[in-house]
């Protein structure tokens, strides 16, 4: 499946911030790779360089895919709406879902292929039907809105079937080869009418074929299912506790999807002989471990999927263990590239950066931790301790939950992650944020706990003040 779509494709810039100075015998190199994609119409990436900047930028320069509309890239979108029986309890959920889908349809750009799927224990095409995709214009949008009246609650929940239908539609002949393929999935309950293995199999078969945002409405759904879908399909996950908020959320989701300009971008890592990649994580805007998603390409290189990109910036944490070399030696620990498959077996290199390792006997250099690396190491730990703390809380381990959530409060406060700190404060009473002293709240709203869990992986970027503070250490 191909790739770029816009006449003037986005430009990618790669910046590397790393702990490149290793002490004698040191082997672990940590680097934060900031990838910034800027629209084809603008030049440059606003890159500012950095402590160890390895910046490059390449215009992806794709051929004109000839979209019929005002310059947007080709795209195909499928909206999957939960129509299980529980959507009528309360009935505002079904109403909210209908309104939200209508809002999303309104946000479709002219020329975008789209379909609406009603999901129960089976998947059903609501619009346009017959295994086809509609092309968005005023007429089809109106027809689709009209068809939404057929969205009615009744039946079970088998999300895997929805995902497979969306896959068939999005990858049908109606969708241009180069289209950005995206799904929006809404559910209100647990995936009760198929085995977890079936959902996993569906995710495995859909992964890489389209991206998908997942939303849970109400509080009766399973956080790990929704976040699992979004994670596997490289989309976002969130909670919409109040159905009234769905329309605004869907509009935002669709606008974001319409902003995607290039699909199937992979993060390619080359490492030298004898080096081992310990992990690769997306760390901003959310924490997403990509380590297990490596696809080997050629000697000592592998691709990690990143999905589709619009005007945005993401950070990745790459940890490489390199063979030891002597003081004064320098080597390339990793070469980071952004690549897209041209569809003919070759790839286009969008941009690349270098992660170096330099062995030094200068303790000041080898013990200094790059602020970016330190920051995201903390953010990854924050996501982890929130998850662990909530798991402990559910299993009745009060002490464990208090300790983990206390650490989370400390990390959130210390790193300036105000959103997460606010969510934490709804689950625990904060006695002292600096030391991480907290008490579990006796009564916690389900929505608050689920919101915290769903959003635990959200990170904030490193702040300037933190840099200054850090530098005084050296």
């Amino acid at each position, binding site marked *: 499946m191909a790739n770029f779509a816009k006449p003037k494709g986005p430009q990618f810039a790669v910046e590397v911030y790393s702990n490149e100075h290793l002490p004698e015998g040191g082997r672990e190199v940590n680097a934060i790779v900031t990838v910034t994609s800027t629209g084809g119409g603008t030049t440059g990436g606003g890159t500012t360089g950095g402590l160890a900047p390895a910046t490059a930028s390449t215009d992806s320069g794709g051929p004109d895919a000839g979209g019929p509309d005002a310059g947007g890239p080709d795209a195909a979108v499928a909206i999957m709406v939960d129509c299980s029986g529980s959507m009528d309890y309360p009935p505002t959920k079904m109403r909210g879902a209908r309104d939200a889908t209508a809002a999303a349809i309104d946000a479709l750009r002219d020329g975008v292929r789209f379909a609406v799927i009603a999901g129960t224990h089976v998947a059903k095409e609501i619009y346009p039907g017959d295994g086809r995709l509609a092309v968005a214009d005023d007429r089809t949008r109106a027809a689709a809105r009209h068809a939404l009246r057929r969205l009615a609650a009744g039946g079970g929940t088998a999300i895997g079937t929805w995902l497979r239908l969306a896959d068939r539609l999005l990858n049908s002949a109606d969708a241009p080869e180069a289209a950005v393929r995206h799904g929006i999935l809404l559910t209100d309950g647990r995936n009760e009418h198929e085995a977890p293995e079936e959902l996993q199999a569906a995710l495995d078969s859909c992964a890489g074929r389209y991206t998908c945002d997942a939303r849970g409405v109400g509080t009766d759904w399973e956080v790990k299912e929704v976040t699992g879908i979004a994670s596997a399909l490289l989309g976002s996950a969130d909670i919409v506790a109040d159905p009234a908020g769905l329309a605004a959320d869907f509009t935002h989701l669709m606008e974001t999807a319409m902003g995607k300009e290039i699909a199937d971008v992979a993060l390619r890592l080359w490492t030298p002989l004898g080096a081992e990649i310990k992990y690769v994580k997306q760390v901003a805007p959310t924490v997403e471990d990509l380590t297990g998603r490596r696809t080997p390409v050629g000697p*000592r290189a592998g691709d990690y999927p990143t999905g589709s990109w619009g005007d945005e910036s993401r950070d990745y944490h790459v940890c490489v263990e*390199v063979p030891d070399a002597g003081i*004064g030696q320098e080597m390339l*620990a990793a070469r980071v590239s952004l690549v897209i498959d041209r569809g003919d077996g070759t790839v286009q290199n969008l941009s690349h950066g270098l992660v170096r390792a330099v062995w030094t006997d*200068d303790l000041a250099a080898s013990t200094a931790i790059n602020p970016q690396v330190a920051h995201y190491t903390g953010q990854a730990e924050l996501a982890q301790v929130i998850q662990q703390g909530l798991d402990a809380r559910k299993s009745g381990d009060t002490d464990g939950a208090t300790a983990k959530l206390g650490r989370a409060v400390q990390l959130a406060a210390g790193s300036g992650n105000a959103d997460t700190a606010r969510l934490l404060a709804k689950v625990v009473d904060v006695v002292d944020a600096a030391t991480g002293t907290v008490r579990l709240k006796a009564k916690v709203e389900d929505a608050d706990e689920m919101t915290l869990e769903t959003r635990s992986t959200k990170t904030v970027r490193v702040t300037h003040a933190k840099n200054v503070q850090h530098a005084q250490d050296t």
Partner: protein
Amino acid sequence: MSQMHQVAPGSPRPTCPGCAEPLESGDLFCGACGYELSAAPAQQDEHPTVAIGPGGVPPAPADTPVEWPQAREVDSSDVPAPVHLPSDLAGTDSGGAELPAAARPSSSDASAAAMPGTEHSVPPVPDAPPVADVPGVPGVPGVPGVPPMPEVPPAPAPVQPVQPVPPAQPPQPAQAPSGPAVAGNGLDDFDEPSTPSRPTPDPRTATPTPTPPAGLKLCVACRAGRVDRDGYCERCGHAQPRERDHMEQELDAVAAASDRGLRHHRNEDAFAVSATALPDGSPAVVAVVCDGVSSATRPDEASVAAARAANESLLAALPREVHPQQAMHDAIIAASEAVNSLAAQGGPATPHDPQQNAPACTIVASVVAGGLLVVGWVGDSRAYWVPADRSVPAARLTEDDSWAAQMVAAGLMNEAEAYADERAHAITGWLGADAYELEPHTASFKPDRPGVVVVCTDGLWNYAEGVEEMAAAVPFDATQRPLHSAQVLVGHALDGGGHDNVTVAVLPFPVASQGAGSA
């Protein structure tokens, strides 16, 4: 690579044979009693960053008076060379203005205490700058021809908190160079302590030829991978040698060599050598050596800019009847401006490293022209005079701009105290936009016999700090084979451990007859 801060040597200092006052290696005279030390046996704890440990007291200097070369009575144009007191010459300072005497209240006291002995008529006799506008520093006795340290009392050392450097590979005292780079030279007799053989041989001493530029097909590390466009092996990832890792240049009358060393990942030293002619057609030879300050940003660019600017300034001035010492002063100013402009240009913005220092480097330069030997410097790079006749003592021509040297010169500390301080090797003068005040030091000499000027960074003198050690490291045929000598000296530093970048230029005096006289 200079560092503005280094670990203090914890080692006991040698003491004066006359009064047991602790000494700094390389000193010409005892700081307390004025005992002449120049002819003393070389000291062995020459490396400043290693703690040799108790008991490692080097042998005391021998009781041999200095035999200084006598100045000639006439200069190259048969004009009688007036003899000046050392105080007439000293150094020149930034701006070309004389320092007010009040600016150095204790200078005479301190300098006299540090290096008395001006009553010895010690050549090389400083040659009077015949141009009146060469600023001199009044009333400062000191080593003849070597300007005293200018700042008294010293400003708080411009150093950052010192990070301990692990003695992972203790530098070795002077050791017979080995390998093809030095094979066949006559260095077997120089004063060397017995040291354990180095555990890690240096591959580069085996290949003294200039390192091939990057872009070769095969990686030099694994010999199997190809080299990518970024200069790394596509297989094992090792960085490939860069152009500056090892540099050599040879003219008829001067040569220089520079090497990355064994412990640094890049070479931040730079040099420039060139030849021109004075207005009378006699040859003038220039060598400039600069050492980038590694605690500043872009030290490699700073050193190149300074060396280039100083060289160009000298080449422009010398044929125009500017006195060589004045030309030297101007060249250092020009080099300083070149380095300062780097800071203005700015590099890639680095918002994650707000503690950036402006690019900075040291400089030491020498001009051999018209029977004169002129040196100029800022920082801790040095110049040595090594006569061809080794029965005549060699001399250090420069005085470091270092914290310890200043403290001693100011009389605030004795050498033992000063060098026990962790700031001892912090440099107190450098070229760069963040230098407090530029103090170019210049001096002229009129050697009475042939020899060579060794112009070098601390990457060399760390392994031959004492004058005798340096002289012993210089091959006997240095006046005939300056490039070979420079290679040998680089090899000497590498054999000693190569902890720093090493750069050395060798200028024969007088200018070789077949030299660039008419160039």
